[in-house]
């Protein structure tokens, strides 16, 4: 399909509890223009991915995953095993086969 992307989404550290307890998801994102038809969005960035996750994977209690238009405090976001801060956080443009990890920090001991 034109401009669709395969993305690996990984949840861990308890974040998976909000996603039917499934840690690894492989998803196909349609062309951004098709998913956001009434906007001028043309590319998938993390920002759009969060919206997609909210629409498609996150069924309940979004406040335990999202806060405002970003992820809630205490969740580490990794793009191909590196902190998303190194890639512009919400603005990072997704590439085919990227692995995006959302890992909740643990506090137990």
């Amino acid at each position, binding site marked *: 399909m034109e401009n669709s992307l395969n993305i690996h989404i990984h949840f861990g550290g308890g974040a998976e509890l909000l996603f039917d307890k499934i840690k690894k998801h492989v998803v196909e994102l349609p062309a951004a223009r098709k998913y956001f038809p009434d906007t001028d969005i043309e590319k998938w960035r993390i920002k759009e991915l969060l919206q997609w996750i909210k629409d498609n994977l996150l069924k309940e209690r979004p406040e335990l995953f999202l806060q405002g238009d970003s992820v809630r405090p205490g969740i580490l976001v990794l793009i191909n095993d*590196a902190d998303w801060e190194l890639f512009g956080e919400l603005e990072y443009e997704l590439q085919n086969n990227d692995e995006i990890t959302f890992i*909740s920090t*643990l*506090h*137990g001991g």
Partner: protein
Amino acid sequence: MDLIQNLELEILELREMLKNKEEDLREAKRNKFSKSYDNVIGTKSNINIGNIPKWAIERYSRQILLPDIGVMGQEKLMSSKVLIVGAGGLGCPASVYLAGAGIGEIGIVDYDTVDISNIHRQILHTESDWCKSKAKSAAESLRRINSNIKVTPYTIEFKPENAVQIASNYDLIIDCTDNVPTRYMLSDLSIITKVPLISGSALKMEGQLTIYGYRESRNEKSSGPCYRCLFPTPPPAAAVGSCSANGVAGPVPGAIGSLQALEAIKLLVGRNRENLLVGRMLIFDGEDMTFRTVKLRPKNPKCESCSDHATIKQLTNYEVLCKMQSKEKDLDLNILPQSHRISATELSKSLNTQRHLLIDVRSEAEYNMCHLEDSVNYPLEQLYGEKFDLLVENIKNNDNVIFICRRGNDSQIAADKILKVLPDAKIKDLSGGLHAWAEQVDRRFPIY
């Protein structure tokens, strides 16, 4: 007195005697070793064993053989002081290896006492340590492992008021704690005292490990991120799990604690930052046995704690900052008025005469482990949407509804949620939860 009690008492006395004898032996050995060491130095010897005594070569030879450690490294370990905060699932394995490696001084802090549910993972405590101070129990075990090191137990709560003074005496802090407020405190403490922090955590089947506040030497600025660089804002309380509520597989903190000890050894012998978990985090998932090391962001140039523009110059109240308790056991909510609460004794009487709807709001796993007969499970964490509506319908047709949980906190939260939509509902909360039930009504019910 019955046989069991008699034997228990006798064993207790024998243990006390044994402990004293062991202490005498350690003292005698200390004297002898330091003398024989002097002798070697005193008589001109043609044996070259570097700057450490013969017994140390013999004792630590297996690690001295490593190029990463060597005689120089061993000397550094023997003159190092490490503070371990938390004598639990992480602190036990971490301190075992550090004691074994011959760290000169180990301080171990824990205000808590040994509970039988700790022993599956807290490997320094045994059945006979039940109710003993964890710090003392750990210290005794460590001295048994290595009588050549100094072990200092701190049987106190590590707080902003005492933390700086204690930590300043050490070269390294190992974070083996179990709660968010203390983790924020240790990070700030590490920056204020300039003592690096090796932070480990474990829950269920997963673990995480990294070094915060790394610096080349005490005089230099930290060059790696601190906890606040990564997590400037604490997480919401509802998103934080604990070993007592969510469970943990013993070997998981075992693995993370052991690796904390390894990073400590490497850091103390002076391995450079490329070889240490600085700016990187190890993430372990025991479920599918994967270890991943991920790259973290660098130090935040605007960090409130560790940057040049830091505003945090002293420790603050971390329970306020995090809007969370550091001691789970202390949480004692009073959300509902007395008219909506019932004691365990009253409930037990009432159960004999009337039909009740018993709603257990603990997690499914807890409910499956043990529950009251005829109770139904509506986990608090699932009380929204359809499940919530279903429960509301169920309650509407009932005159006697009792909410139950482990300690009587979550049950109040759940009952309160229902009362907000059904203000006249005949709802009561079991005061003190199943713990109170076990203590006041039925001792056969497990307290966990």
